[in-house]
């Protein structure tokens, strides 16, 4: 049973010590990733997606960061590993691709050097061998004439190419988990689609689990199998992609879905927006964190924090009123059918 999941994040808490006191950026996040699955991690800017990802990789400066909970990867709790042990995991068993392809590569080393470096440290290959492997990886990501490219510097290639290089680097040691933190936000739409295709294909080939961080629900619909929605450091809903798009339970998720522009929608109609702004981490609401912005909020919501509850086959939600909302939904649908 325990080995069914590649990654189990269990009540993860990440607390930064700042000058104005501790800041809990991730507060009790729980989710799992299976082999060969693409899990979407979505939510507004600042909700803690990147901090969650970097906690899994243990990339945060640990002098100012405290973790709590468990991150079980292949049955080992990453939070209890030594630094030395983490070195063997990063870039080898778990890899990460970052949001900003333009600045994620070191400007003073060639592309070949940067890919080969990862291969050399984790696979104990000689330089020549590692370079050949780097060329293979670049070929896999669809870069034309990789033999030439490896001698180029990052400033000599385009953003889309750089992101492919990042992917080649991340996958060069055949990791079992890939964390892609908004891998396409900085790229234009056609390149976005290509990059997502590359990730998807390689996922199939390597049977890896993928955590796809994004705030683009279009990306989620395209590549993810399951989705975790975060709000202010917590998971507020988790579901299969189809379930999430067809019957979202949390008012926040509904708001997010409604705010996607539709091609066949009325152009004069204003896009839906969620009221208010995300509160700051120093000023977290007492009850449900979303309550101050929620149109359905009751007295209970403002005073008492709801837990993440399992509703049905693979759908979880953190909301007091989801049942009532569900009923309304059914009625609304019924009226539209009539």
């Amino acid at each position, binding site marked *: 049973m325990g080995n069914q999941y590649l990654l189990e994040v269990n009540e993860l808490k990440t607390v930064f010590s700042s000058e104005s006191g501790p800041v809990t950026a991730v507060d009790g996040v729980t989710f799992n990733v299976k082999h060969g699955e693409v899990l979407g991690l979505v939510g507004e800017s600042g909700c803690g997606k990147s901090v969650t990802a970097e906690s899994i*990789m243990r990339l945060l400066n640990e002098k100012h960061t405290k973790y709590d909970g468990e991150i079980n990867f292949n049955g080992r709790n990453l939070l209890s590993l030594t630094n030395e042990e983490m070195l*063997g995991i*990063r870039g080898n068993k778990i*890899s990460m691709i970052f949001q900003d392809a333009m600045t994620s*590569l*070191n*400007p003073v080393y060639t592309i070949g050097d940067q890919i080969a470096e990862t291969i050399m*440290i984790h696979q104990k290959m000689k330089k020549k061998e590692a370079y050949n492997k780097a060329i293979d990886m670049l070929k896999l990501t669809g870069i034309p004439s990789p033999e030439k490219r490896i001698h180029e*510097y990052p*400033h000599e290639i385009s953003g889309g190419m750089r992101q492919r290089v990042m992917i080649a680097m991340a996958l060069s040691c055949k990791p079992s988990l890939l964390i892609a933190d908004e891998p396409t936000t900085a790229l234009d739409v056609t390149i976005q689609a290509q990059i997502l295709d590359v990730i998807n294909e390689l996922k199939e080939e390597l049977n890896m689990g993928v955590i796809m961080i994004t705030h683009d629900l279009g990306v989620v619909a395209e590549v993810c199998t399951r989705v975790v929605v975060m709000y202010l450091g917590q998971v507020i809903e988790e579901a299969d992609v189809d379930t999430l798009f067809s019957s979202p339970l949390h008012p926040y998720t509904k708001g997010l879905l409604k705010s996607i522009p539709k091609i066949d929608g009325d152009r004069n109609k204003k896009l839906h927006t969620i009221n208010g702004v995300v509160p700051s981490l120093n000023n977290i609401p007492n009850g449900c964190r979303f309550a101050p912005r929620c149109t359905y909020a009751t007295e209970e919501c403002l005073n008492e924090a709801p837990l993440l509850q399992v509703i049905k086959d693979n759908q979880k939600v953190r909301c007091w009123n989801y049942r009532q909302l569900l009923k309304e939904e059914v009625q609304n649908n019924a009226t539209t059918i009539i």
Partner: protein
Amino acid sequence: MKAYIIKRVLSMIPVLFLVAIFVFFLIHFIPGDPASVMLGPDATPEEIDNLRSELGLNLPIYQQFFQWTANILQGNLGTSLYMNMPVLEAFISHIGPTLSLALLAQGVSVLIAIPIGVLAARKRGTSVDSTFMLIAMLGMSIPSFLLALILMLVFGVKLQILPVAGYESLSSGILNHLKYLILPALSLGAIQAAVITRMTRTSMIDILSTNYIKTARAKGLRERVVIYKHAFRNAFIPILTILGETFGSLITGAVVTETVFNLPGIGQLVMNAITRRDYAVIQGTILIIALTYLTLNLLIDLLYGVVDPRVRLNRK
């Protein structure tokens, strides 16, 4: 690449020419006459006048200037009026102490400043960081002659472990040679070291927060490799600029330091030449210093290309 170097070397010529004009006229407008200085207070006006015409000082100033430039173009920097030897020879006989002093000051400051700067950046915000930054702050604000006097007082007079002043050439043994240079190098290099420490720290802090450093960590690289291979090479680019710039202050600083510690170097040569109104020596030496400065800056610019591929020229 070759074309670039040739272009840069050619572009030095007008600069050197301007320096030459400037130095020539500046010195000739300083009141005081070499002939009367050389002959001493007891000389009669005729004697002085004779010497002046012998030295060509009676000619109109523009003729003197053309004469001098024509000589320089033939590689002749002139002859010292006072020492009675060619300027180049005088320069060469004084370069030893200055070269040793400059290399030692620059070398020591770089070897100390860069590792401390890196350490301070890594320990940013801790007491290690603030202690070093305080020392650097002091180092930057203390005038080098004052530091020189303090060092002399402490190590030379009180502790008596190092000579207060003087010089022994390299031929008398390396240790002997260094013994005389440690205090001068420290006082000359202090400001340099302080500036480089602060620059290194700032630059490293900048670089350590970039995305590619996060990438390097995410690859599973050791912290040592992240710092020295990935961060430092990038942080070194602005440090290189500072190295070029501080070299200028090293030269001017050397004049003061050599005077304080009584080192027979270029600084002393120039100082003496000024008091003696030894025109040829002043002009020639300053011209050579300017040339050295320009050449050094060219070398540093070429070094940029080695460190930073983005400025590399004529890549295939």
